[in-house]
Each structure stands twice: as structure tokens, then as C-alpha cells.
């Protein structure tokens, strides 16, 4: 271990007189400057290989007419220029209209889901802040939905949402008599609420976990001082907890937003290949546009548009939240 470290440090400290190795001053310097880059090369190439190349290929695909006739050797697929994009954003034509509808569904779904996840997660974390008997058990219990495999968790919800013998209808209709007749949850307009329920159920433990970690960093003394000044629970949350959690929330909301917006597993397991219109999330919509109708070019174009949208949202979000924080700090 020690030998390696000294060996690595050696060239950095090599004496400037250029006596080492007897080579000239110049090549020695090139070697010295070049070595770190050489050592970075594998990492750089790997990054290219696993990260950038698939993305570039995806973008290239979006400019090709990649249908079932060309997928076997997609280098032969004709260039489509911006046709795929045109089809995707032509909102008067059926494909574009469906995409736009799916986009609005996704946006409202994401806003509701992230909002609820954050609210429930934060509330639970705040209530769990004080020690009490059974706190550890409750914390562990809260994290269960997050720890379950997605498929197993969502398929359980599918059974619960079934019309004829699902648990949800049994409770709402048979026991509580809240509805005049059993509702359909997996088809039709109610599917949006079914999807939202599962998404929030699955997502809030993450918010809970992160906020709980953030709460550990708020000094106890602040609360004690506030209590002495006569601040109640609500005042303490508003004046101490929430401002202190600001940096945590900034990241948490962004991550939840991106995950929810892009979520594929939940709607796919819940509804299968063709989601009901009310719950037609964009990720499944794109999947359907490419895999089910075998038009990978249009699918890629839609994905690229989605990527651009998320980039813009993320950028704007970060600029706004960071600026607000800087002025607050001053």
C-alpha cells in the first residue's frame, strides 16, 4: 500500500531540474502532464460506452424512419430528417394530439403525486422526530412500501382494485356503502386515482427517509430557544424546521419529480400495454408508440422531446431555487 502511494506521488514531486531519468526537460513535462489523462482514459471511454453512446444512438434513431421493415439492420433505415418530430408535435393530428393529452395527464399526475408524497413524508418525519416507544418499529414499517419489489407491490394493488372481488370495492361499497354500485378502478376515468394512490403509496417513504435524515441536522437548541420565546409547535415547524430543510427539499422534490414523471413500472403493471386514456402516462405512451406499433423512430423522437422538456424544467427549477437560497443566505 505504502509503496504504491509513494510511487504515484513521485512524478508529481519530481524535481524541476530535470535530472530524473536523464531525459530532456520537455518530454518529461509532457509525460508528467499526460499521465493523469492517460490514467483517466479508461474511465472516460467507459463513460462514453455505457452512458453517452446509447444516448447518441437514441437521438440518431429519432431522425430515422425505423419501422418493422428496417429494424433488422437499422443502418439501412432511411433518414427521416425532422419527420418524426413533426408527427410528434403536430397537435391537430391524432399522434400529436394523443401525445399532448398524455403529456398533460403526466404533468397533473406528477404534480399531485410529488405534492402528496412530500406532504405525507414530511408530516410523518416531523411526528417521528421525538423519541417515543415503538418509534423504530413505526419507522421500519413506513419504509416497507419503498423496500418491496415494484412488481409484487403493484400487482397486489391490481388485485385490490378489481371490480368484482377487489378489497377496495369491498371496503368502499360493501362495508361503508360510500358508492351506489362497485366502481371500476383499472379502466375508465377512475384509473387516474388508482394510479395516483399507488404512486403516492410507493413514493412517500422515500420523502420520509430523506426528510428524517435532514431533521437530524437541525440543532435541538433552536427548538429550545424558540420554545422559551413562546413559539408553539406550528410556529416551530414554520420558522425552524422548514427553512432548515430547504436544501434537502430542493433535491428531494427534484428527484421525486423526475422519478414520478418517468415512472414506467407502476402504470405498466397496473394497466398493461394499453393504458386507459385517463391514466395514459407519457412513459407508457412512448413505449406503446415504439414497441407496440413497431415505430421506433417516432418513439425515439418522443423520448428526445421528453428529455429536452425535463432538462428545461430541471434547469429552471435549479436556477430559481438556488437563487432564492443565495439571497436568503445573504
Amino acid at each position, binding site marked *: 500500500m505504502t*509503496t*504504491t502511494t509513494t*510511487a*504515484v506521488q*513521485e*512524478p508529481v514531486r519530481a524535481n524541476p531540474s530535470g535530472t530524473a531519468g536523464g531525459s530532456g526537460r520537455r518530454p518529461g513535462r509532457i509525460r508528467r502532464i499526460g*499521465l493523469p489523462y*492517460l*490514467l483517466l*482514459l*479508461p474511465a472516460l*471511454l*467507459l463513460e*462514453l*460506452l455505457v452512458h453517452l*453512446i446509447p444516448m447518441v444512438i437514441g437521438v440518431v434513431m429519432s431522425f430515422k424512419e425505423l*419501422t*418493422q*421493415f428496417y*429494424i*433488422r*439492420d*437499422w*443502418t439501412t433505415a432511411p433518414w427521416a430528417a425532422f419527420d418524426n418530430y413533426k408527427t410528434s408535435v403536430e397537435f391537430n*393530428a*391524432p*399522434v400529436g394530439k*394523443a401525445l399532448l393529452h398524455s403529456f398533460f395527464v403526466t404533468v397533473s399526475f406528477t404534480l399531485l403525486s410529488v405534492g402528496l408524497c412530500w406532504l405525507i413524508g414530511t408530516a410523518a418525519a416531523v411526528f417521528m422526530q421525538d423519541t417515543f416507544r415503538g418509534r423504530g418499529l413505526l419507522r421500519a414499517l413506513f419504509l416497507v412500501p419503498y423496500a418491496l419489489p415494484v412488481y409484487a407491490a403493484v400487482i397486489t394493488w391490481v388485485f385490490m382494485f*378489481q*371490480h*368484482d372481488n377487489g378489497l377496495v370495492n369491498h371496503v368502499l361499497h360493501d362495508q361503508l356503502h360510500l358508492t351506489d354500485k362497485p366502481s*371500476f378502478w*383499472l*379502466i*375508465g*376515468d377512475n384509473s387516474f386515482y388508482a394510479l395516483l394512490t399507488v404512486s403516492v403509496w410507493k413514493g412517500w417513504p422515500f420523502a420520509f427517509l430523506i426528510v428524517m435524515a435532514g431533521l437530524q441536522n437541525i440543532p435541538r437548541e433552536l427548538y429550545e430557544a424558540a420554545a422559551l420565546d413562546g413559539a408553539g409547535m406550528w410556529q416551530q415547524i414554520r420558522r425552524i424546521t422548514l427553512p432548515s430543510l430547504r436544501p434537502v427539499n430542493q433535491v428531494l422534490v427534484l428527484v421525486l419529480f423526475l422519478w414520478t414523471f418517468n415512472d414506467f413500472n407502476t402504470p405498466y403493471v397496473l394497466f*398493461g*400495454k*394499453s393504458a*386507459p*386514456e385517463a391514466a395514459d402516462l407519457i412513459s407508457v405512451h412512448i413505449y*406503446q408508440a415504439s*414497441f*407496440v*406499433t*413497431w*415505430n421506433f423512430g417516432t418513439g425515439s423522437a418522443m423520448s428526445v422531446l421528453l428529455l429536452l422538456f425535463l432538462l428545461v424544467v430541471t434547469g429552471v427549477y435549479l436556477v430559481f431555487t438556488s437563487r432564492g437560497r443565495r439571497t436568503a443566505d445573504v
Partner: protein
Amino acid sequence: MRSIRAAAVGAVTMSLALAATACGGGSSTGGGSNDSPKTLTYWASNQGASIEIDKKVLQPELDKFQKQTGIKVKLEVVPWSDLLNRILTATTSGQGPDVLNIGNTWSASLQATGALLPWDAKNFAKIGGKDRFVDSALGSTGAEGKDPAAVPLYSMAYALYYNKKIFADAGIAKPPVTWDELIADGKKISAKGKSVLGAEGGNVSENIHHTFVFAKQHGADFFTSDGKPDFTNDNIVAAVKQYVDLMAKDKVIPTGDAEYAQNQSVSDFAKGKQAMLLWQSASANLKSQGMPDSDYGIAPVPVQSGTPGTGTQVNSMVAGINLAVFKNTKNLDGATKFVKFMTSDDEQKILNTAYSSIPPVKTAQEDAAFNTPANSVLKNTLATSASALPQVASESQFETTVGTAVKNLFAAVAAGKAVTTDSVKAELEKAQQQMPAA
């Protein structure tokens, strides 16, 4: 100093290796070869009640093949929900099985990708000739005028399965022959508190299979003779409406079935909750769910009037499984031998008996095992009154778009909305607009 040099050399080597692999993969568009003559990979579709059952059925046969030829077959049973995606992925990457099962309705779509070995006269000669197979089965192996993309393996047809006890309790002497009779019988059955007819309203493919038959009975086709989608003509609209009306107006299909997509209707039938089921080769499935053969009867699917036949008297699609060879196979000869083995008389008898399907091979079909009352209904349907789904390149898109339209219509009925000619037409129009222009 030495370790730096070693690190530098390591870095360069690794970079080169990475660059090489990056350039290497992908391009694998060559035809078949015989580079690895001792092994084959076979993707089987899920024909039995579970994947485990399929393995139990197929493995002894594969062992037999190995004994005969010395070729080891690696078996993978792929569930239906994944099969088409897996085939598409294999097509795109060029990395796939050597031999595979495909749903016969996909033949023309997959043929268009060029991923499957065309069965020209020369290839057919290697497995005993094209005329060993039944014509109706050959009609579902690819677009007309092109060499088939696959060879028929199992044939199936739709039939009406009815619960004998429920029929007796309701005082119905014989199974319905026309839709009107079915609806009339339905009233008697409902009066006894049982549900009448099962359907998989959320299953896109099932919806297509039924609406296709209704369309035929209305004398309509979903595609024009030159292969263009024609979903909104009056007869198609009437056909789709008649099917959906079985739930909306005639109340023989319970509204709960609108969300069925995982064969729940088969379970309902097997549990004796429901009097009738329209299904393809259901015997093995029903048995595995605990319903003995003696409890139900099998009759042809109803028609509008008269008896089943050709033209508007069609009462089933030609359902079935085809066996295809992946063009990129590294064991072309072995793959052909395997197809020959699987379509041989002996194997056809064993496999089709196990899966309660009908052999598409003429000589195997004559075996006594396929003359039971159940099988003769299926065999007769296939021979006289079944029609192949459109063999066009955009068939799988058609299944998805129109199947989804029918699913939406059932969902609307379930939500209590009225289904009118206009609403049916609007859904079909939406489906047609999603079809590829070509």
C-alpha cells in the same frame, strides 16, 4: 516508477479493449451458418397451464431429438406477455434463438422484418414438403404471394364451451346455434342467478379475435384487398357494435368482464359461476383449474343464422402456433432438422394431445386421438368455417389499435355510458388514424 508504467500500460490496454468492444457489437446482419452444429436454442411459447407444465411436456421430446441427432436443444419457455418483445429485441440485435414459436397471426408482420428464414420449396423439401400441412393452417404463415415465414405447429379454433349443469337447470336442451338463440338462452340463465357469457374485455388480442369473426359474419374485412386499413366502413362498425352490445344491450356478458385481461373469464367458467365461454382449445386449461371434461359440452361458435361455413358463416379465426427459424442461426442444418422433428407425425400426436390442440399435419390429424367429440368440433371448424386473420405487414399494429378501441368501448359500457353507432365509429376512426401510412 515501474508501477506507474504498469498502470499506464494497463490504462492503454483497457482503453483499446473498450474501443474494440464498442466497435465490435451490433452489426450481425449476415445470414445463417453452420458454425455451431451441436447446439440449438429454442424459444417455446407458453401453451400449457403454466411454464413448468410446458417444460415437462417438451423436455422429454427434446431429449429424444438429442438422442437421434446428437444436437442439444436449450429450451426456454417465454410467456405470451413477453414473446413479441423478445422477438423484436432479438431481431434488432441479431442475437436470438435458432428456432422459435410465434403466434400465427404475427407471421406477416415478422416476415416484413426479414428476421425469419423464408420457407421456399427447397426448405420445405427438407421437412417433407409443403403438402404435408393443412391448407387453413398454411394460410396463416405469411403474406400472400411470399414464401411462408414459418411452419404450422399447433392449430386451434374457437368453440363455445357450455356448462351442462347450468344449461339443464335453466331448461335449455341444446347449445345455441345463432346469436339470437344465445341471447334468448341468456335470459333463462340470468333468471337462475348465473352469469351468461365470459369475455376478456381488457385483453386486446381476445377482442380482435372476436371482432374479426363478427366482421366476417357481417361480410366485412378490416383491410382492403391492397392492404390498406378500412376500419370505419358501416359493416365493421355494425360488427364491433354487435360484439360490444352483448354487454351493453343484450346483457349476456357481465360488465365486470370489461376489465378482465388475465383469463379470469376462464376461471369464472371453471368455477361454475358462468354458463358459457368462447375460447380456443380450452380443455387442458379447464382441467388444470379443476373442471372435469364431463361437466361441460363443446359446440361451434354461434353464427347470425343457418350453420357455420365459409363467407359470412365463418365462426372462428384460424388460431395457432407456427414454428420459425431465425435467419441469423449458427446452426441452419440443425434448425431445419429440429423443425422436421417437431412436425413429424409422432411428435405432432404427442404435443397436440398434451396441449389439446389439433395437428396442422394431415397424416397426424387422422389419428384416433383427435376424433373425440371435443376435438372433432375444433377440427371441423378449422376445416370448414375458420378464416385466417389478415396477413398484412401491419397486422400487429391492427391488433393493438382496434383491440384497444374495443377495450375502450367495453370500459365505456362498464362506466354506464351508452354505446351508439357513432361512438363505435369514433373509436374505430381513432384506431385507423394510428395505423402506419404505408
